[in-house]
């Protein structure tokens, strides 16, 4: 061995060796930097092992940093409130922007003990975060809870407990170009008739901007399909006595769900041609903004785009099928959560239940992005400021909270595929039954 190495080694061997040593040290240092976040706190811990208990507490108190994870927009809005809270209480506040994959990042980081104290996110994460033991219930008195709109309150309630402080509600509605279609359609059938007429007259390119596909164009979009599915009589899950969706009662594959998809197929690619797999949320919005379609189904997040485009528009609830039930859209609720494994849990609870639950925060968040506030007092403020808020509120009337149970994960894949099959014009009954079977199999595995 040694001979080989010496043969390989060029003459100035020591320099090469020290170079390698440097490389090794640099590698070590780099890998160390990878876990840098822990470095600071670890030193803090080590130094806090001082003999006197008071000294320890004082030192830890100086180091108390409330860590908040939010997306870009929310972090900008919450920054002044967090700073004010920190100043008032003599601690530090740190808002970290987590732009992508927030839920998974939170799960992984919390498990590794590097998670935040407060998380800003969507209510449908609750089921998964609870089964992983990562968020704590928030105990609000009845009168404080009553200050929230019903749908927001029920969305953050899981297994009888409130797990988040809601701040915004969003749901789908129908955008209508009032130049092209002055009258709001009463049914989806009427909408398609109007759209088809406009298309035949060459005024528009598409009957309706109804997002059928996810961005990848390859799987259907359950979220956007849900209003039509429910109007046709379908449902995903039944309800347990405490109000949560019941995974034991699956609605996909039932005769009602087949009937609902038969209605959807009537408007699909082999039917009226209104619903098409080529339509996604993005290109629907582009079509609507350019006046190439008179209708679009989307949420408040498109308001800014539509306004910028300068289209004359109105917002009404998504219409149901003729002779069908009401079209229920999924309601997504944005909320603040207290992390179970945060280092400053008591402080985090204080911040969430008092500061973040205040009307000022809700109003500031609304000013930053026009989503319907969950707090009734902030909602009044928002409605006075922006007439569209009341319209989305009306559209939320028949809405149901997006199921927060972890079993919902089993639905997305098969249901998305099912939407594509139906809109494409394949035989409805076998496709619905296959999707129901696939979901049931997946659910069976959870036990």
């Amino acid at each position, binding site marked *: 061995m*040694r001979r080989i*190495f010496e043969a390989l080694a060029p003459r*100035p*061997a*020591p320099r090469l*060796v020290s*170079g*390698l*040593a440097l490389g*090794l*040290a*640099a*590698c070590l240092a780099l890998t*160390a930097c990878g876990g840098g976040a822990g470095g600071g706190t*670890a030193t803090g811990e*080590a130094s806090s092992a001082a003999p006197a208990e008071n000294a320890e*507490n004082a030192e*830890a108190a*100086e180091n*108390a940093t409330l860590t908040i994870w939010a997306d870009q927009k929310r972090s900008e809005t919450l920054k002044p409130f967090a700073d004010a809270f920190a100043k008032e*209480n*003599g*601690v530090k506040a740190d808002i970290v922007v987590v732009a992508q994959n927030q839920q998974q990042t939170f799960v992984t980081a919390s*498990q590794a003990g590097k998670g935040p104290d407060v998380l800003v996110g969507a209510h449908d994460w609750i089921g998964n975060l*609870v*089964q*992983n*033991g*990562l968020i*704590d219930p*928030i*105990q*609000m008195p009845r009168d404080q809870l009553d200050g929230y709109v019903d749908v927001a309150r029920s969305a953050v309630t899981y297994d*009888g407990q409130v797990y988040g402080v809601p701040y915004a509600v969003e749901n789908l509605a129908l955008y209508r170009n009032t130049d092209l279609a002055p009258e709001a359609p009463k049914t989806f059938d009427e909408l398609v008739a109007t759209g088809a007429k406009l298309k035949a007259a060459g005024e528009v390119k598409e009957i309706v901007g109804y997002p059928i596909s996810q961005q990848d*164009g*390859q799987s259907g979009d359950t979220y956007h399909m849900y209003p039509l599915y429910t109007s046709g009589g379908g449902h995903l899950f039944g309800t347990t006595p405490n109000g949560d969706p019941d995974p034991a009662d699956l609605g996909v594959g039932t005769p009602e769900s087949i009937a609902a998809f038969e209605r959807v197929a009537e408007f699909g690619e082999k039917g009226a041609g209104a619903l*098409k*797999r*080529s339509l996604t949320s993005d*290109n629907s919005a582009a079509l609507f903004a350019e006046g190439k379609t008179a209708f679009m189904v989307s949420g408040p997040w498109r308001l800014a785009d539509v306004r910028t485009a300068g289209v004359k528009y109105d917002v009404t609830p998504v219409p149901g099928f003729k002779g069908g039930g009401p079209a229920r859209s999924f309601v997504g609720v944005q909320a603040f959560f207290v992390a*179970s494994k945060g*280092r400053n*849990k*008591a*402080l985090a*609870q204080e*911040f*969430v*239940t008092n500061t973040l639950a205040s009307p000022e925060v809700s109003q500031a968040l609304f000013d930053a992005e026009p989503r319907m506030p969950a707090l009734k007092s902030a909602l009044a403020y928002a409605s006075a400021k922006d007439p569209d808020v009341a319209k989305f509120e009306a559209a939320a009337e028949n809405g149901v909270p997006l199921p927060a149970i*972890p079993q919902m*994960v089993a639905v*997305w*894949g098969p249901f998305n*595929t099912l939407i594509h*099959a139906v809109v494409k014009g*394949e*035989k409805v009954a076998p496709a619905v039954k*296959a999707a129901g079977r*696939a979901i049931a199999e997946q659910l069976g595995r959870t*036990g």
Partner: protein
Amino acid sequence: MTITRNPARHDRAGTGAAHPRARSWPGSASGVAVRVLALGLILGVALWAAAPLVSSGDWTGMAITAVATGVALWAYLIPRRLPAKYLLPTTFLLVAFQVFPVLYTMSLALTNTGDGHLGTKSEAITAIETSSVRRAADSAEFRLTVAEKDGALVFLLADPATRAAYAGTEDGLREIGGASLGPGGRITAAEGYTVLTAAQASARSAEITALAVPVEGGAIRSQGLSRAYRGTAALAYDAGCDCVKGDGGIWRSDEEQGRFVAEDGRALPQGWKVGVGLSNLGAALTNPKINAHFAGVFAWNLFYAIAVVALTAALGLAAALVLHHPRMRGVRAYRTLIVLPYAMPAFAMLLVWRDMFNTDFGLINRMLGLHTDWLGTPFTARLSVLLVQLWLGFPYMFLVATGALQTIPREYMEAAEVDGASPWQRFRKVTLPLLLLALAPLLVSSFAFNFNNFNGIFLVTSGGPFPSDNPTVGATDLLITYTFRLAFGQQGAQYGLAAAMSIYVYLIVAVISIIGFRRTRAFKEVS
């Protein structure tokens, strides 16, 4: 080993740091500085790693750090450990980036790690108990002040309705006099108690959230630092029966599943991580849901990887040959253009391609005046992903082939020409064998890459189109996208199963690569 023990070698082999001036320096002053710095860095990193390990009492980790540092110092401080000096960094990198991930994946495959089974049993119990605390409907909203008495935590509670003041500890609640209430009804000071500031209280977060003041009809707990409520924990763990009781039910610990299960089979959502032995590995072989589509997916996967390698190599080679021709002009400009797709981020390009395939709004259909549902039928979708990967992959092959072409001596071609070989014969008998010598190992590694080309499929088709009667497996699914959907798509993240599946994918790729490399050696013999 003793043969090389001659003093003259010491200087060259050693770092010299241990014996300054004892022998003649082989390096310059800056060389010495670098060596001292490097050794210092090793020590520094070791100390940096030791602090948190000691404070958390992780003695295994501490031992590993100590041994690793010891070995590093032994190798670099003592002269004449030349092989070790080379081996050590390599071994370190090998362990850190190869051995550890593989072992970790394998150990993960033997557990049920996944959503709902991430932590330990005690963490699950804490979560179960914490989330079962329900606020009593008639509970007052106490104003809370966190204080301490003789170092013990005390809740100073004010009832906003009666303005009565209480002190609560884990022994119970008692009324106190002489407390002054501030604005908002909170106690600001009380005799004999030291009120904690928010920062001080926050440092005792764990104690505060754990403190429950027993009272009639439940216990008073904190909600933050300024409020408290009366509530009861519906569920409690009983170590005696190793079960969770309450709410009119008993959930017994099931160490095989890692969760608490009731008589009727219903389980509490919070579970914990347990070893499941080989059942994840077995599931991949025996569970019909997992292996029913294996053959079909595997065949397409094999075809995909081979086709991508063959097509990119053919196109890359052709482009390289054309640009290599001596009469070709503007070679630099062409090369720049060809390399462009390789220089752009593949991630973004894949998404752009995906949108270009859109039936109604995609660039391809618009330009060609077609109405093809590119990604909607199995055949066209497969064609599409191959096309995309060809576009993304051929510049690499072009670069490699261009480089390899430069190394082929012109004399060979001239000699062949003199011998009267036709251009095709020259290519077939001279250029190609020599090129393949250089390219073959890269073709094998390109195969291994494309066999697991997750992005190339997932970002373009997501594995679809899916047959309407079976939403679990799509026409363009590779093993890796198929297993990804199985492990993460439908049931939350199941890391254990995912690890087991990736071991199989790894084995398949390893076997094929070994065969591939064997074949490469065969080429060598031919040439």
